[in-house]
């Protein structure tokens, strides 16, 4: 521990911190532009100057390591004069366009010039003009405003792992750009907008939409992937204007993926705001009453076993639980599942379907093996943590398939199930590596659980790792990446109808054995409709609504409170930021009302009763059976990673214009092959 004195306040800090961090700890805020906790130190904005005893000049506190016995002053006239001088130089070339700048109101330069700015300029020369750069469909540039802090460059190089941003030229003529103004090829590119302390990089879809003080801010949870990033949703009336990250050191630090950030315009498009009924092949607007009546009639005419339901990828846990109860008690049908594909799942124990080591635990691992997963697209934030682990510990990373650029180096070993068999039978070099590693991390993706030997791969690997004591109380080396926000929640609530590990409900749906099919926000179902009566309950007019006979308008994730369990099994609550449009209702209300009409009894009096019952269920159904070894059949087949249409993976992103643009951009790059 080092002892320092900051403005006569004694402060004790750990070794390796900077003077700036010491001042923060003592409770004195230091103005800064280039310094950022998560990035390397640049020390080029000079705004953080402080006075140090025995130093003839003020020092840049962000770049000066703190040492024992330092005496720092942050509020002397010298410091203020120095900072005023720095600010004058920064403002010399900064345009006075705050009234038309999107950063206005949340601009570091604007805020700090309130303290250190001079009211008039002594700069008589022409201001510098810098041509704007193209950085892709997400980032709007206004490079004249740039103050050369290089945060964006450091983010792209260090965190995102794409060295595409750089500073060309020098001195006053330095310009930030991508190589030949290509768009930034990263799923984290949007974060440079948050990092930019001025309005040089702003959000293209959000341009001139609103001022920060007009927006209502709601802290909530993201559902675009299973990571459950913490976000803040900014709304203006009903419209979700933008989504920003919220700091959560356990999950997303302070980054979010572009899909999380920019899908929000999908909440405005393609919305179902009133019930529809299909008549003669065409959808007609109708009322809730008529729609409900039709459904009730149909259900009453049908045997319970001929009714099935599938829940969706964005459904919150309250709705899932309500649907489960609805099927159990109201309809009395067992045919409810949450899987729209034939994924193998062993839900005897919760450890069999979650990411056991937790997102932060990745850093402790000393060997990572990716099997049938592309974390860059399936869980962008998780990929970022793997990259950080690599940078920190030079962790060895292997993959069974060629995944292209993952932003860190990895070794490809042949992608067959045979390889896994060899590993288990100690015939592959990798088996020794796994055995010798202290904390190996085997990551299974959904693509491998879908193949014929999905069961073999999972059960045999589990058996192998258990025997080698790689699955124990401290470290469970077998981890699953779920793709959807609702996956783990559905498994926790046992929304699975398996027999012999087969998805019976889905099998029977594909065989057209049902007469009524409920789709609760389920849009990924691929089957040939025969004579089924399909009821779609959801927020967007997409694939699910297209084949429906009755559509009931539901709410999207920003329009209702709801719990979600992320891939590491962490339960988090998403809060309502907006309200359902038109006549649409919260999903659980629809289920409750249907139940009322069918049985003249509501399932729940109110939402808090539903939540209590749900948590009660979760508490009483903790899955910790130490399952026995399960026999499985081996097929020799290729393990390929399903190509995920990253920008089109769910209804919200599919309805988003921004996401379509990103997708087109990416396709264009792939087609022309401009690389190299």
């Amino acid at each position, binding site marked *: 521990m080092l002892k320092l004195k900051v403005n006569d306040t004694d402060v004790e800090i750990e070794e390796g911190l900077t003077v700036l961090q010491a001042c923060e700890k003592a409770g004195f805020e230091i103005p800064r532009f280039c310094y950022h906790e998560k990035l390397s130190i640049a020390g080029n904005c000079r705004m953080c100057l402080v006075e140090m005893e025995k130093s003839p000049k003020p020092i840049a506190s962000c770049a000066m390591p703190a040492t024992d016995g330092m005496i720092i002053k942050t509020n002397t006239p010298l410091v203020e004069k120095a900072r005023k001088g720095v600010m004058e130089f920064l403002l010399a070339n900064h345009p006075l366009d705050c009234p038309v700048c999107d950063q206005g109101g949340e601009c570091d330069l604007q805020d700090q010039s309130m303290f250190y700015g001079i009211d008039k300029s002594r700069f008589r020369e022409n201001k510098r003009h810098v041509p704007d750069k193209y950085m892709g469909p997400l980032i709007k540039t206004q490079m004249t405003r740039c103050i050369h802090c290089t945060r964006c460059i450091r983010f792209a190089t260090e965190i995102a792992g794409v*060295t*595409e*941003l*750089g*500073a*060309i*030229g*020098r*001195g006053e*003529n330095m*310009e930030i750009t*991508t*190589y*030949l103004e290509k768009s930034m090829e990263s799923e984290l590119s949007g974060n440079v907008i948050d990092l930019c302390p001025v309005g040089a990089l702003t959000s293209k879809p959000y341009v001139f939409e609103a001022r920060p003080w007009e927006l209502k801010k709601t802290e909530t949870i993201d559902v675009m992937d299973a990571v459950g990033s913490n976000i803040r949703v900014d709304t203006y009336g009903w419209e979700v204007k933008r989504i920003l990250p919220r700091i959560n050191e356990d999950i997303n630090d302070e980054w979010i993926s572009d899909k999380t950030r920019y899908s929000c315009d999908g909440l405005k498009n393609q919305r179902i705001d009133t019930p529809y009924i299909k008549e003669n092949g065409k959808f007609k607007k109708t009322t809730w009453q008529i729609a409900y009546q039709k459904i009730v009639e149909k259900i009453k005419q049908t045997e319970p076993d001929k009714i099935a339901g599938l829940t969706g990828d964005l459904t919150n846990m309250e709705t899932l639980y309500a649907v489960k109860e609805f099927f159990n008690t109201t309809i009395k049908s067992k045919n409810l599942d949450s899987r729209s594909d034939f994924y193998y799942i062993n839900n005897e124990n919760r450890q069999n379907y979650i990411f056991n080591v937790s997102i932060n635990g990745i850093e402790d691992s000393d060997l990572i093996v990716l099997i049938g997963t592309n974390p860059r697209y399936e869980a962008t934030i998780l990929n970022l943590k793997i990259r950080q682990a690599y940078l920190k510990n030079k962790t060895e990373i292997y993959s069974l398939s060629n995944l292209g650029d993952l932003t860190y180096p990895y070794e490809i070993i042949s992608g067959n199930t045979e390889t896994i068999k060899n590993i288990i039978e100690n015939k592959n070099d990798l088996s020794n590596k796994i055995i010798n590693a202290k904390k190996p991390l085997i990551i299974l993706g959904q693509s491998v659980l879908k193949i014929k030997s999905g069961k073999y791969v999972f059960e045999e690997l589990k058996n192998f790792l258990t025997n080698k004591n790689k699955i124990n109380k401290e470290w469970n080396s077998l981890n699953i990446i779920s793709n959807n926000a609702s996956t783990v929640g559905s498994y926790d609530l046992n929304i699975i109808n398996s027999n012999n590990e087969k998805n019976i409900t889905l099998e029977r749906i594909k065989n057209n054995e049902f007469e009524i099919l409920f789709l609760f926000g389920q849009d990924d179902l691929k089957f040939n409709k025969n004579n089924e009566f399909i009821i779609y309950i959801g927020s967007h007019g997409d694939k699910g609504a297209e084949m429906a006979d009755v559509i009931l308008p539901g709410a999207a994730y920003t329009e209702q409170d709801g719990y979600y369990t992320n891939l590491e099994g962490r339960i988090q609550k998403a809060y309502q930021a907006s309200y359902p449009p038109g006549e649409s209702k919260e999903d659980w209300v629809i289920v409750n009302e249907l139940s009322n009409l069918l049985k003249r009894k509501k399932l729940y009096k109110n939402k808090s009763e539903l939540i209590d019952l749900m948590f009660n269920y979760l508490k009483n159904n903790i899955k910790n059976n130490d399952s026995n070894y399960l026999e499985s059949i081996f097929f020799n087949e290729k393990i390929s990673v399903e190509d995920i249409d990253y920008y089109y993976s769910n209804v919200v992103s599919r309805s988003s214009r921004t996401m379509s643009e990103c997708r087109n951009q990416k396709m264009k790059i792939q087609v022309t092959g401009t690389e*190299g």
Partner: protein
Amino acid sequence: MSIKKISKEQPKIFEFNSKNLEISKKIIENYPKGKQQSAVMALLYLAQRQNDNWIPLAAIKYVGKFLNIPYIKVYEIATFYSMYNLAPVGKYFLQVCTTTPCMIRGAYDLVEICKNKISKNQGELSKDGICSWTEVECLGACVNAPMTQINDDYYEDLDKEKFEKIIDQILNNKKPKPGSYRGRKNSEPENGRKTLTEFKNA
């Protein structure tokens, strides 16, 4: 000095010739293993030499691939240093020093002559494409101000008439004699002084 203009006409391919390939391998060997990126400046200069004294984008990519550095990093370096030319220059490339000592001794007169005789703006080729000029910062020959660098040689102690003659020679594709144009040897004192105490008010 404003940001360097990048030529609009770019060759599609650039590759080191066999001689330069050998030299570049030797340069890389100068650096410890895993630090081969340090050779980037030397290789860029090599590429410039090979390609008529300017670096095309293809060469930036080539060097990036050669050393396994992202293109943007190589691009940053190429745009940072003024000795890398990113657009074609003439067979005779004039760099007129305009930093203070040269400026006081009449460097702007030389610039005027360049404007009249070679091209209106710096960085442009002359009509016959044989010559181009640019203003540069101090070239370290202040004692012999004003001066100009033509390709690899210094032309010192110039004035209007002498400089005009030099340019006329260049435009006729003749290489003028480098060195001092007032008959000095390097930067020796004029009128044969050996010490400062010999003359008053020296």
